[in-house]
């Protein structure tokens, strides 16, 4: 057969073939532009689409007491999640092992097939290992804080919580992620930066339907974990947990606080506030009217007679009073148009300073106060760190309060001298003040978490040895000599010197008992520790002194006591 019109069409075919080839060449060139020239742009866009990052929370550092007892540790919690879309097993098998209502769960699975649903929090490690392997089940493992519930360091350690916005925005190159758990109170808060650790990061693969790919190894480079989390530093406290427990045991029935402090270093050996709470279940105590979250050792109260020692110290140091000169106490004293009573209404008779401290005579101190003056009392109170921040490594410490000289009345002076009226100080300040007296005048910054560090000296006072010895002897008499205010509650095991205090509760509620104080030191010669116990409505100083004695007994098991020179 004759070929059709070859001559006329062949040109057209050639042209067409060339045109089509050019089109395809263009397509190939354009695809080289996409795939070779701009490869990195598209590859990074795909990565941004697919590969996502999430944090691996760092473990918080542990907290130990001075003997290595674990007070707070980091443990892992496993939460079980389910994605119904991937889950093809029998749901009843899972409900059987955990406390979850199967009907509720099954209903949930039906309603949200593509969601990641929480089944139950905190399942055991062995159960987690099993469930991890079942398709559709996911175990989210993350560190949480575990507090040793056999210790009594709650108020010191504080507690953690979800980070807040202001903390997150505080520093630009923040180590914190927006869902981190950080310290909210106590040492957890103060040392959060050290305890927190550094969060890690891992990659995962997100599918177009919003679910995570189960076996992402094909799409990820080598290791999923791109930054390994670093555990926070451990914290070793100067706290001795045994003494802490002794305080806790002795204060079971009371509301109050107790502090034991090393007089040479300012290290805090025990610091206990009652009522206590379990920091593992902190939500339970919110709204409790006993205010268990309040740390009473750093809250301020009227110090009562324990404050008399400040006046005595000022009088001795300034040489204004001869300590052996006797003053008369008839049970009442007229001053400023008002009659002031001694706590002992029949009066103590004639007594010198040692006896006045021993019996805690108010009238004696009313009289010497006139000579010492309010300005000197306040000056010496400040030298002992009263009414000022101690600088302890805890948050929300109360400053306490001293009267202002300006605008003061003679009544202010008399109230101040017996630790009533305007004066308010914290148990910690008082313990630190007595520690300053017995160590010769070095006011330390009390520390909880710097065991082994050199003590930080806040104020360097040089008290005369004679006046220190005189006061220590007088405080010895308070507890150890018959007639002393704490004599009847003295310990048969340890020899302690100290001062009682009984402060009227502000307000005229007659039903309320007085607040009770005891502050002392141990051993009576070359003291090592100072102790302060405060009990709200404890009635009388002598009735709370045994709390201090119990703790000192515990302390003395480790440290040999010295006997008083007067007995030798």
């Amino acid at each position, binding site marked *: *057969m*004759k*070929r*059709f*019109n*070859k001559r*006329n*069409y*062949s040109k*057209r*075919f050639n042209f*067409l*073939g060339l045109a*089509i*080839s050019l*089109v*395809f060449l263009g*397509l*190939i060139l*354009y*695809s*080289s532009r*996409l*795939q*070779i020239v*701009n*490869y990195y*742009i*598209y*590859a990074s*866009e*795909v990565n941004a*689409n*697919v*590969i996502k990052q999430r944090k691996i929370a760092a473990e918080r550092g542990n907290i130990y007491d001075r003997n290595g007892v674990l007070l707070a540790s980091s443990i892992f919690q496993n939460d079980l999640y389910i994605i119904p879309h991937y889950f093809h097993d029998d749901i009843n098998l899972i409900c059987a092992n955990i406390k979850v209502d199967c009907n509720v769960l099954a209903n949930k699975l039906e309603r949200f097939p593509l969601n990641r649903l929480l089944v139950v929090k905190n399942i055991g490690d062995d159960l987690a290992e099993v469930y991890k392997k079942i398709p559709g089940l996911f175990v989210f493992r993350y560190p949480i804080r575990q507090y040793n519930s056999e210790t009594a360091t709650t108020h010191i350690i504080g507690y953690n919580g979800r980070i807040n916005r202001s903390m997150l925005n505080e520093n630009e190159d923040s180590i914190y992620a927006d869902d981190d758990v950080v310290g909210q109170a106590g040492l957890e808060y103060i040392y959060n930066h050290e305890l927190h650790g550094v969060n890690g990061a891992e990659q995962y*693969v*997100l*599918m*177009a*339907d919003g679910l995570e*790919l189960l076996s992402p190894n*094909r*799409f990820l480079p080598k290791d999923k974990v791109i930054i390994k989390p670093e555990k926070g530093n451990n914290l070793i406290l100067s706290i001795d947990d045994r003494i802490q427990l002794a305080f806790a045991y002795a204060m079971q029935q009371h509301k109050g606080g107790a502090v034991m402090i090393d007089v040479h270093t300012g290290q805090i050996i025990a610091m206990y506030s009652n009522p206590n709470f379990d920091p593992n279940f902190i939500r339970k105590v919110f709204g409790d009217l006993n205010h268990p979250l309040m740390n009473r050792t750093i809250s301020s109260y009227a110090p009562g007679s324990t404050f008399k020692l400040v006046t005595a110290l000022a009088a001795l140091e300034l040489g204004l009073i001869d300590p052996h000169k006797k003053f008369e106490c008839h049970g009442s004293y007229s001053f400023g148009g008002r009659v002031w009573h001694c706590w002992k209404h029949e009066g103590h008779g004639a007594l010198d300073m040692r006896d006045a401290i021993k019996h805690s005579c108010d009238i004696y101190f009313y009289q010497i106060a006139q000579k010492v003056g309010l300005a000197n009392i306040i000056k010496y109170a400040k030298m002992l760190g009263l009414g000022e921040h101690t600088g302890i490594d805890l948050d929300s410490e109360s400053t306490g309060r001293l009267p202002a000289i300006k605008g003061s009345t003679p009544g202010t002076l008399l109230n101040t001298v017996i630790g009533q009226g305007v004066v308010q100080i914290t148990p910690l300040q008082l313990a630190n003040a007595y520690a300053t007296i017995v160590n010769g005048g070095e006011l330390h910054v009390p520390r909880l978490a710097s065991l082994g560090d050199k003590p930080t000296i806040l104020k360097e006072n040089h008290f005369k040895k004679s006046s220190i010895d005189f006061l220590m002897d007088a405080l010895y008499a308070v507890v150890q000599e018959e007639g002393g205010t704490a004599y009847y509650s003295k310990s048969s095991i340890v020899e302690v010197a100290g001062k009682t205090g009984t402060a009227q509760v502000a307000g005229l509620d007659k039903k309320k008992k007085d607040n009770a104080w005891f502050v002392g030191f141990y051993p009576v010669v070359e003291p090592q520790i100072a102790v302060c116990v405060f009990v709200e409505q404890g009635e009388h100083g002598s009735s709370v002194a045994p709390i201090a004695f119990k703790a000192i007994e515990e302390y003395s098991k480790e440290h040999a006591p010295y006997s008083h020179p007067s007995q030798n």
Partner: protein
Amino acid sequence: MHLTVIRRRIRQRFRKINKITDKLFSRPYFKAIFVLNLIALLNFYSVAGKHAFFSQLFVFIIGSAVAVFISNVDYEWIKRFAIPVYISICGLVALVATIGTRINGARRWLKLGYFTLQPTELLKVALILMIGFYLQARTKPNTRNGRQYNLFDLIIPLLFTFLPLILVLKQPDLGTAIICLLITGSILFFMGIEKRTLVLIILVLFSGGFTGWKHLKPYQRDRVINFLNPDTDSRGKNWQSHQSIIAFGSGGLFGKGTKKGPETQLGYLPERETDFALASLAEEHGFVAITVVLLMINFVIMKLLFIARNARDRFSAVFATGVAFWLGCQAVINAAMIMGLLPVVGVPFPIISYGGSSLLTILLAMGVVANIEKG
């Protein structure tokens, strides 16, 4: 029976098979089709799962056998079959419009027991057959061969095209409609049209385009608008196109490897084995695979044009040209769509996109082409 006899018979069988395969592969464009199929199967293995892989393999084997059969039948037979084939396939398209299976809102498939058939694919080749047949019949022995067609000559082939297209658009299947129009238009243009007629047609097309725009479905309009304004939110309606481009580009020179393309494997790329199969191929096998595919298709088209040039009569010329335009249009439109040069239209890439009907149609057409070439 003696063992040697069996051996001899087996050898004879093999010889027969060898003859068939020899015939198949002696033609270089069959080799190109074969290579394209291998690439497509590799891609299906990676992205479409076992079922799709084997069903496509099955269609390939059956289709090749039918193609070999068609290439060996008498040439005149094929011409004789043009009208019945066209009518029956138009019937199938009409059937789809009434009882077809609906997938993703479009009614395009006919369920035939275990298989589903997409008659619109067959319609393309039937259309080419019909136009070829008509033009051949219009070529009177005494007319000048170079005579150009006027409007009256074009009315009937255009009718052949538009009648089934009404049904196609009803499915709706804009992609197929566009391809069919392009095939008819380019065949007619290529075979020669008077200048007056050409101007008229262009005017009609413009006004038709204007009214057609008014009748587009909202999603179809969105695609066009998104194409013209590509900076819209990539999570929005332009999402498909955006995913396609980044999947394509991120393949690089050699691709990420089988089953290793995240866009493809994780569901970001839509229609990864059908309309966007070329993008998944690009992501997993890179620039190299894309170049091979485009060159192969280009080669097949060139070969078809040469066959058309050397054809024995107008029917052959029209058929080969039609098939060349058909494959070329689909390949270029699909590739351009995947690279973001055109809006998203449902036009599959020949052979590379999954679809039994489409592959079968191409293989049948190749059988006819081989038959034409022989003569």
